[in-house]
């Protein structure tokens, strides 16, 4: 036993005590959640852009109200750019669901619009070209042409008439996906509607009252705790409903990946540097393998702890702790341990059967595909966590360690028997995997010739 612990301790130190480990521990989340994190950072760092838009208002009535709308939008954005106070954060009731999303979208980072009235007489292509040149020089962001008959209100009766309706033209380098265009047309339509109502002698306020939209809130299910108290349902945010399971799956995948790769490298080093012979002269293959797996599990738990603690700190800083499914942590740990054992033992067997990293990579191709498979279907699974695909896929042993917690971290109720059964299947598969890996490991470690084919590997595994 002491030998196993000696081996485990060395393996652990070799995995955790390196600069490469530190770098990959920091780089992994950056790579995987980099986009979100970068946006969060930029929100506080980047300066706010101002976009000047020249308005050619041929109707002569829209420019002033448009400018007022732009100003009030700018003021609103300036206010919401300030970080919300603690009181605001803790009472989601005071906010509407829409505003909560702003935190994720970096909405307050949006450009401010400065509208400029075009002072020319007649608009023609020469003038349009001049304005285009100003855009190319960067003086102006866009120009917009409001036709003179924009306030006319006649319903088209033929397709030709519909095509002939007045249209606002928006010119910009990125007019195709410009947010300014979307904003402008929404505001123009609102203004035009009000003006047409007034022109028709209809009371605007009545219409507004009549068309006041009804909101909707997504809520989770009510729960009753052991003392019989019913806990109110919590508000559900679509983004949170996706991000939490995704983060759970990504974290588990990252830990498995970061534990398996060093295992492959360490076995390869032991083999190609003939350390294996020295080790086998001191410890049995079984002790050696157990020690290595133990050290790797220890290393992976260290990574997991770093991320869990880090994640918790970030969450409590942002006030998101209520979204972290704490009750799942024990399940999560158990599935993680067996997931690491399962894949690390495969990587170990592969490391023992080849002599070069290159060969290992081609041999690991199918393993990688299986390991990544949850990544291809996760969205379908969190949409329907109790569907046939989700249920069966989470019992496929290589996917169980990531899929079962993924399903459990959604809001759906997974029958308790399923994670237990999944765990039993996973344990059985891991035991079989470790057993086969051990046999391949024993023969492979001293094998110095060409890379064995699958048939030979099977022979090693079953005949020794």
């Amino acid at each position: 036993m002491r030998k196993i612990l000696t081996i485990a301790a060395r393996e652990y130190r070799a995995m955790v005590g390196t600069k490469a480990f530190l770098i990959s521990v920091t780089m992994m989340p950056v790579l995987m959640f980099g986009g979100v994190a970068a946006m969060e950072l930029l929100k506080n760092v980047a300066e706010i852009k101002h976009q000047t838009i020249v308005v050619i208002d041929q109707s002569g009535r829209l420019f002033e109200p448009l400018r007022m709308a732009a100003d009030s939008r700018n003021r609103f954005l300036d206010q919401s750019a300030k970080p919300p106070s603690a009181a605001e954060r803790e009472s989601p009731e005071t906010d509407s669901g829409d505003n909560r999303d702003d935190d994720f979208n970096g909405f307050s980072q949006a450009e401010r619009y400065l509208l400029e009235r075009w002072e020319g007489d007649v608009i023609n292509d020469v003038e349009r070209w001049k304005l285009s040149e100003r855009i190319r020089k960067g003086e102006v962001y866009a120009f917009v042409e409001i036709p003179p008959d924009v306030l006319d209100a006649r319903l088209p009766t033929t397709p030709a008439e519909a095509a002939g309706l007045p249209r606002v033209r928006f010119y910009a380098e990125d007019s195709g996906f410009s947010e300014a265009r979307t904003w402008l047309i929404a505001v123009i339509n609102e203004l035009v509607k009000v003006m047409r109502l007034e022109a028709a002698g209809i009371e605007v306020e009545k219409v507004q009252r009549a068309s006041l939209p009804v909101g909707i809130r997504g809520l989770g299910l009510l729960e009753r705790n052991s003392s019989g108290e019913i806990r109110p349902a919590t508000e559900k945010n679509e983004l949170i409903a996706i991000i939490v399971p995704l983060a759970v799956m990504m974290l588990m995948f990252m830990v498995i990946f970061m534990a398996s790769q060093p295992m492959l490298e360490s076995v390869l080093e032991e083999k190609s540097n003939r350390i294996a012979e020295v080790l086998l002269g001191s410890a049995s293959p079984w002790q050696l393998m157990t020690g290595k797996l133990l050290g790797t599990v220890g290393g992976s738990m260290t990574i997991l702890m770093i991320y869990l603690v880090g994640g918790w700190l970030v969450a409590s800083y942002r006030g998101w702790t209520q979204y972290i499914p704490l009750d799942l942590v024990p399940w999560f740990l158990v599935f993680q341990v067996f997931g690491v054992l399962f894949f690390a033992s495969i990587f170990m067997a592969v490391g023992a059967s080849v002599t070069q990293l290159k060969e290992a990579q081609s041999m690991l191709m199918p393993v990688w595909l299986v390991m990544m498979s949850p990544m291809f279907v996760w969205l379908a699974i969190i949409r329907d966590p109790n569907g046939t695909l989700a249920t069966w896929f989470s019992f496929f042993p290589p996917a169980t360690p990531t899929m079962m917690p993924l399903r459990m971290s959604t809001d759906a109720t997974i029958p308790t028997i399923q994670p237990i059964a999944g765990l039993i299947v996973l344990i059985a598969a891991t035991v079989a995997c470790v057993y086969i890996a051990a046999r391949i490991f024993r023969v492979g470690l001293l094998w110095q010739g060409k890379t064995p084919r699958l048939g030979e590997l099977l022979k090693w595994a079953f005949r020794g």
Partner: protein
Amino acid sequence: MNQYAIELSQVTKRFGQQVAVDGLDLRVPVGSIYGFIGPNGSGKTTTLRMILRIYQPDSGTVTVLGGSRGAAADDRLGYLPEERGLYKRMRVGALLNYYARLKGHYDSREYIRQWLNRLGAADWENRRIDTLSKGMAQKVQFIAAIAARPQLVILDEPFTGLDPVNMESLRDAVLHLREEGSTIIFSTHDMDMAEQLCDTIFMIYRGKKVLDGTLDSIQGRYVANRVRVRFADPETRLPEIPEIASVEMANRGFLVTLDGGTDLTRVIQKLAQQGELHHFELIRPSLHEIFVRIARPTSGELDAGLPEEALA
């Protein structure tokens, strides 16, 4: 305790169709230095691995330090594999202590330090293995093999890649180990080193034992077929007789290679007829020559019936 550290009896090991070791018998007395020689691929390493129980023989028995069973690693054995065997990214001190701990010696710091000092490596403890030169790494590897104070030390090619100074210090280390009571087996291509160090020499060729004994006894079994001849008168010529296979000029005399099975008395008579003999010396074959004679893959004569034909 058994008087033999190692006893192999009728040991055979096959890899697929190939017979790596074929019906090998070997006895290594406790406290001796035993040299394994033999060309590449002749079965040396396989034999060493069977002694280490990394491999199990297909037939025959391998008894090491009294035990003949089990696949389990033996903590009383120390092993230096041919080249490398060290974790590149570990530090010397940590690595040596790790190897000692693996053999159940949890406090070897002092012992390891003594050996580092003895091999002139006192300040290497905190260096990483991949910063060491080949000779330095070889010394570290040697200490790794003996860090757990083994009764039996197995060294596979310990002298390859060493400069003469390092070779000397490693040779002294081996002798020191023997004084401490260890039995040492090493394999080598360096015949001079084998002649200098070994009490007993063992040669394996194509999986079979071809030599086993003290240097004297081995040399005694080979007919000396070279003689040094010097006449009183340097002008004297050699007789033209069929027994002389070839002649080299050496040191005002002749180095004469005779045909196998030559009657020496007749040769001396013929020489004496040419003129007054000043010097006549039978040169015993060196281990190097014996090795080459056995292992040189010449025409059918060697292939046909080894080892009987090589031995005269």
